């Protein structure tokens, strides 16, 4: 008979899900990702009481450090970046489980040491043989690391144990490299144990897209080509590439953002209702959307790309992309990318999805705007509705998370005059200590083994299939058009929509 925990009751929804005994091995300890996101998220999880007693964190890097040095790095990262207040008792619980292993990714002795450390933690801390390996390192090293994990028996869980691997974008730079990467990972870990973190999918608002669409009755009837004119998905950053030239040059905006975040957002907006809110059902529906997505025939008319030029952004003088340190003057890497995607289903036929992303744009914002068709008939004088444009439903992903409805309303006064107004909803909950940040949620899901929010390799490959032709087309022809920093992108982006008789929203 299976054991049913008497203290658990499905009715008891106060009890949070606490991960079982486990630990995490972090590769790439000194990187930005580890220090700004992963370490603070682990602390915040502990602070919320969501980590198991005995949770252990092992750092692995090519540094000559002792455990205390590593603890100091984590301490500084937590103090600086954690969202919840620093509490000595939480730190004490966590820091007893810190270990550091020094070595290269091809160093057998170091991995033997890691193996020893992991076994030791099982004994001393009761991690139960459950380990997640977080690869916060460039993908070029994945092969080495997972190979070493396999060789030293770190990838094989014992009975009733798990071993999981966590990777971050980029998941390759085209379909072929993505497949290679997947083969490397899948060769060692079963696909259910590979967690690809797309931190956008951990965001409250992104999950709220599903709640809004499938828990309500008032949006579904208009969520189709009969009423929707087009959809704009924007992810804009006001910063430049900063010190990330090495990563960014040759990758560019489309690979960096569209392939993962924007196509995932598109899938959530466009998908049919899943039969259940579980990982498999969601994945099936998302894959259907990605499979039915096509590019228009003329890529020269339906895509746009640009590079930011020197100028003034938000009151600061900034340099152009080609002047950034580490970028060649001849670089054709785009810092702005916009594409048109058609979803060939009954629901969306004839409704273009415009996806755009860029650096050094007007402001930092991510949003999904569903723009509706105009009313088929307006019983008003033409002068009354001149200020009336199309209704829109805007899902604001960040910052200022929430939703905006844009519709026409009468301007107060004696004349009949109709103009666009906004109705905003912002849920306060997404800004409080009590609600988890995206990384926290995702790391907790890794430890719980709950994968609904992680894209599987099928989705990654399907996304590359959509994007590859655009990137190949761009590589063959021309180069990115310069745009002034602090604006909303190159002229070609505006022309691209103008050809369809539409304009970009100012987000």
């Amino acid at each position, binding site marked *: 008979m299976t*054991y049913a*925990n*008497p*203290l*658990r*009751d499905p*009715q*008891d*929804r*106060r*009890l*949070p899900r*606490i991960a*079982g*005994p486990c630990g995490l091995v972090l590769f790439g300890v000194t990187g930005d990702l580890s220090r700004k996101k992963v370490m603070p998220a682990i602390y915040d999880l*502990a*602070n919320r*009481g969501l980590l*198991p*007693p*005995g949770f252990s964190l092992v750092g692995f890097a090519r540094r000559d450090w002792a455990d205390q040095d590593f603890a100091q790095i984590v301490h500084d990262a937590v103090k600086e970046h954690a969202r919840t207040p620093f*509490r*000595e*008792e*939480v730190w*004490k*619980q966590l820091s*007893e489980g810190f270990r550091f292993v020094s070595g290269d990714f091809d160093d057998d002795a170091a991995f033997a040491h890691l193996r020893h450390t992991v076994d030791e933690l099982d*004994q*001393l*801390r*009761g991690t*139960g043989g459950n380990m997640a390996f977080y690869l916060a390192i460039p993908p070029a090293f994945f092969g080495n690391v997972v190979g070493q994990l396999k060789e030293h028996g770190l990838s094989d869980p014992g009975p009733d144990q798990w071993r999981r691997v966590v990777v971050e974008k980029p998941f390759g730079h085209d379909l072929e490299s993505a497949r290679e990467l997947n083969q490397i990972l899948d060769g060692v870990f079963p696909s259910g144990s590979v967690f690809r973190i797309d931190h956008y999918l951990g965001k409250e608002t992104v999950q709220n897209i599903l709640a809004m669409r499938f828990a309500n009755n008032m949006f579904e009837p208009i969520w189709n080509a009969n009423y929707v004119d087009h959809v704009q998905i924007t992810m804009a950053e006001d910063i430049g590439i900063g010190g990330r030239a090495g990563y960014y040059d040759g990758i560019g905006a489309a690979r960096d953002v569209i392939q993962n975040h924007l196509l995932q957002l598109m899938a959530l907006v466009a998908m049919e209702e899943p039969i259940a809110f579980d990982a498999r059902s969601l994945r099936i529906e998302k894959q259907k959307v990605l499979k039915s997505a096509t590019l228009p025939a003329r890529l020269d008319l339906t895509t746009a790309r640009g590079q930011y030029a020197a100028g003034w952004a938000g009151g600061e003088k900034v340099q152009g992309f080609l002047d950034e340190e580490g970028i060649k003057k001849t670089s054709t890497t785009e810092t702005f990318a916009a594409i048109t995607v058609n979803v060939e289903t009954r629901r969306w036929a004839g409704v273009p999805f415009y996806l755009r992303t860029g650096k050094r744009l007007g402001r930092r914002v991510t949003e999904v705007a569903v723009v509706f068709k105009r009313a088929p008939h307006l019983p008003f004088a033409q002068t009354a509705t001149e200020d009336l444009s199309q209704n829109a439903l805007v899902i604001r992903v960040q910052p200022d998370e929430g939703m905006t409805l844009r519709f026409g309303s009468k301007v107060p006064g004696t004349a009949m005059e109709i103009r666009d107004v906004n*109705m*905003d*909803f*912002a*849920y*306060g*909950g997404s*800004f*409080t200590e*009590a*609600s988890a940040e995206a990384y926290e949620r995702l790391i907790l899901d890794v430890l719980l083994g709950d994968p609904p929010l992680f894209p599987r390799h099928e989705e990654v490959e399907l996304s590359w299939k959509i994007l590859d032709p655009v990137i190949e087309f761009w590589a063959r022809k021309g180069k990115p058009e310069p745009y002034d920093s602090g604006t909303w992108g190159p002229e070609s982006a505006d022309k691209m929509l103008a050809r369809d008789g539409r304009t970009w929203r100012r987000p």
Partner: protein
Amino acid sequence: MIELTDTNSSRIAAELVRSRIRAGSPAMGMVMTLVIVAPEEDAAEAMAAAKRASREHPSRVLGVILGDARGAAQVHAQVGSGDGWGGETALIRLKGEVVKHAESVVLPLLLPDSPVAIWWPTSAPADPAADPLGALAQRRITDSAAVPRGKSTAMLTQCRSYAPGNTDLSWTRLTPWRALLAAALDQHPLKVTRAKVTAERISPSADLLVAWLSDRLKVEVTRRNSDGPGITEVSMDTREGPIRISRADGRLATFSSPNRPDRPVALKRREVPALLAEELRRLDEDDVYAEVAARLVKLRSKK
């Protein structure tokens, strides 16, 4: 804050709208109405707690201070929004005859459609659901540990008069303990043969924990006294040995279990705003609390 003296509900409502417009944001994003009923001396602290909770749950917060019921009826109010509130607020002082008809002041001020929660930060009516103000709310939050005298009796009284929607912050305080205990049995899938709860002599939370454990584990649960603070130790005996969580300082606990090394685990006593925010997260009936309340009444009647 705008002071309204000798006022009534419709003038308070009008002032709420005006203050919203003055704050420059006429949109209403509030998700519920929270009514707080407190004596004058506790009102300020309770409103401060509600202010922090309002960041997670933007609400219209109505503080109601019931004064002396003798004499002519008087309604005074302080109305405001913004200033760190995730919604808007009115602190209403009642004196004289109207004290017995407080619901007539509150009813017109409830937000349309959205749910109503009521919170008595200190003393609460013996039967909150039958209270005229309590009857307006879906969620009735009491705090037996905060009554000035007779905390254990207060807890029992609340359990006796349990009605769907009632809850007590003594129960909320237990969530981290319960989460840890449940996680312990996830890790050690063993039958518990007996359990023991050690806490300071008067602790409504400990009483509820005993009731919860005996209700779920179907074994005898004993209660021991310590100097606190709060609950200091819970142990569950299994055939492999005891599973024990002990917390001497109200902050850091030690988790011991069979065949495993002892581990420290943070288990901090939470402040009222955090408790209130947890309470407001779910507004439907808490079935588990209902069972625990019934169990507590049963355990007491045996004695």
